């Protein structure tokens, strides 16, 4: 017997899987990529109807009022079909910020209802190209400065921007079509676009201010990091299934290559990697739902992302090798999974980064 929580998650998983499969699975994602990247507006509405975006939003604000574990279930399904819709960005970052800072704002209902998509602009690029201290300013209702690594910048209707106001940090909303906003698009390996935003006295509406903004951002990034890990788990799961099917059918020397022991043992290693990642990441998400200390939540999120990235790296790279030459072609779907894994790994920190964060957090906790 599964507990009622587990049963809820099982049903959620099933309905999310059916929704994505009915929409066309990974084939749909390929078509969208070939059409120039971006996502499908009709799919956004369908996901909203299923309650996907509001999964962690309280019921009184129009959401499902479930936890991050439920968000992870959905993220895994997104990963399985490499769907380009900004599910993790929305559940983790934009709604992660808004539900903590201004849950009654009209945008919450609009995002949950699939009427609008907001991207979150919080990081900035420093002179050496890496992430740097924020210097974007907000004063007299206007934004000035730049933001980098904005996922979903291409299709979003607006941006939630973290900036320094006259008396501390602020969260402001800038319309995507605002004057004096320029967006430089950087195409990613999977065909998606990351935006580099430049504001020059760009009009924006203040949504929240004070230390709560920084706190909410920390927690939203924790959530998004763990959800991105779940998306990688789903991706790895499907990439392995595709590869397993392939080695069972591809014949060389008059036998399926999956009958050769060296291939079998490699496949087993990938399978074990996938199972460990799935168990670890799901455990983290469930623990994060019951954990209130942001530092512990950050450590947990790092554990999840470190594991998910290292598993996804190993599985997608080995998947190409096990496919042989056709794995190197665009025609086979396995390459789409590799490309998506590259993007999801780099976003919000890769495995080496998160091991460092995890280790430091553990040391800090040990010392305390």
């Amino acid at each position: 017997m599964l507990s009622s929580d587990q049963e809820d998650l099982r049903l959620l998983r099933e309905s999310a899987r059916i929704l994505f499969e009915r929409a066309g699975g990974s084939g749909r994602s390929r078509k969208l990529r070939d059409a120039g990247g971006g996502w499908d507006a009709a799919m956004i509405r369908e996901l909203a109807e299923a309650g996907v975006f509001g999964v962690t939003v309280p019921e009184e604000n129009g959401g499902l009022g479930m936890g991050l574990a439920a968000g992870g279930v959905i993220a895994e399904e997104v990963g399985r079909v490499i769907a380009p819709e900004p599910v993790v960005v929305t559940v983790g970052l934009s709604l992660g910020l808004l539900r903590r800072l201004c849950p009654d704002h009209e945008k919450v209902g609009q995002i949950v209802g699939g009427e609008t998509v907001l991207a979150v602009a919080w990081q900035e690029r420093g002179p050496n190209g890496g992430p740097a201290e924020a210097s974007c300013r907000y004063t007299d209702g206007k934004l000035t400065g730049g933001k980098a690594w904005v996922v979903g910048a291409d299709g979003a209707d607006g941006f939630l921007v973290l900036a320094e106001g006259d008396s501390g940090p602020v969260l402001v909303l800038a319309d995507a079509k605002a004057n004096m906003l320029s967006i430089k698009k950087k195409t990613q390996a999977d065909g998606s676009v990351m935006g580099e935003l430049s504001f020059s006295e760009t009009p924006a509406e203040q949504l929240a201010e004070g230390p709560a903004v920084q706190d909410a951002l920390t927690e939203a990034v924790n959530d998004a990091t763990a959800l991105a890990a779940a998306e990688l788990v789903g991706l790895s799961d499907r990439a392995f299934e595709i590869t397993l099917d392939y080695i069972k059918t591809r014949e060389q020397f008059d036998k399926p290559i999956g009958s050769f022991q060296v291939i079998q043992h490699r496949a087993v290693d990938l399978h074990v990697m996938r199972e460990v990642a799935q168990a670890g990441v799901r455990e983290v998400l469930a623990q994060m739902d019951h954990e209130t200390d942001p530092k512990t939540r950050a450590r947990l999120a790092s554990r999840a992302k470190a594991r998910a990235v290292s598993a996804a790296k190993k599985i997608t790279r080995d998947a190409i090798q096990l496919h042989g030459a056709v794995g190197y072609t665009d025609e086979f779907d396995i390459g789409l999974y590799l490309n998506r894994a590259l993007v999801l790994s780099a976003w919000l920190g890769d495995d080496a980064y998160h091991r460092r964060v995890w280790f430091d957090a553990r040391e800090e906790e040990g010392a305390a």
Partner: protein
Amino acid sequence: MTDWNAMSDAEFRKEVRQFFEAEYPEELRHLPHRPKFAEIEHWHRKLHAKGWVAPAWPAEYGGMGLSAAKLLIFYEEQQRWGVNRGRDMGVQMVGPLIIKFGTQEQKDYWLPRILSCEDIWCQGYSEPGAGSDLANLRTRAEADGDDFVINGQKIWTTMAHDATHIFMLVRTDPDTPRKQQGISFLLAPMDQPGVDVRTITTLSGETEFCEVFFDNARTPQKNLVGELNKGWTMAKALLSFERIFIGSPSLAQNALGQLESFARGRGAFDDPVFRDRFAQAALDVEDHAALYSRFADQLKRGETLGADVSMLKIWVTECFQRITELMIEAAGPDGGTIGPLQVGNVGVDVLSSFYKARPTTIYGGSNEIQRNILSKAVLGLPG
């Protein structure tokens, strides 16, 4: 008779923990070697008086009758406190075999003697030509009057030099189409002229493993357990619970704890490369524990475990080995030194951990065999 299974998990855990913490001799905690019976006899008497020698056996045979869920808790607490499993071959292997396949007479005679350790058992499975390919075993047992006469050789017989009896797989029919057929389960006394035991010195200098030679050794025919020539199926049936036990996180968790205190004392964490490798190993242990609980939950829900449980053993043993490699690395120029290395006021025996980790990927079905099993039974790969 206490019905342990009626207790809540937390109550039961508390009860077990209290008993171990109060009664288990401090000097026997986390023993680095397998003890001879004399060394732990005092503890065994206490356990026997408590009725806790055989947690998995049904209560009617003198066991605790624990459900799978409670049994896991019992073992977790045992490992947590570093309680030595003692000379438990009889309890772990022979008892379940006799309970499942033995006659009433065999049960009445052998089971109480296992509980009291009047008989101490060793396991005679492997042979020089039958390791991973166990069914290739050749030790013969031929009927002769009321006895079987045994000829052949067993190897890797753990603690045979401190055992009174051996339970063994022997070939009773050499002419079968498949080598898995014609194998039987036999119990035999060790103290007789036809049995010769020689210890094997391992890489670490220990002598826990033995070779056992049978030269016209005898055992009464009534010591055949189960049907003649059906031993292989019975042996497989016995292994189901062991497969999660052998993949439990405890070995790696204990080693990680040792590594951490050693590395900290040695200042190894000043090196960012070492920090990363430590983090990798620590996360490997944490995420393995998450997977282990998934299987343990399955058991707790009363489901049977499939062949996929083998992955626990693969992961945790290889992880254990990586951890012990890191200990050697942290030891620097002392990495080749036998005995405890002093860090602060504790001694950490780096090489002993290293050696202890080596056979874990070999015993209980080598990790290569486990991969074969997973690839066919779980992934459905052909050939």
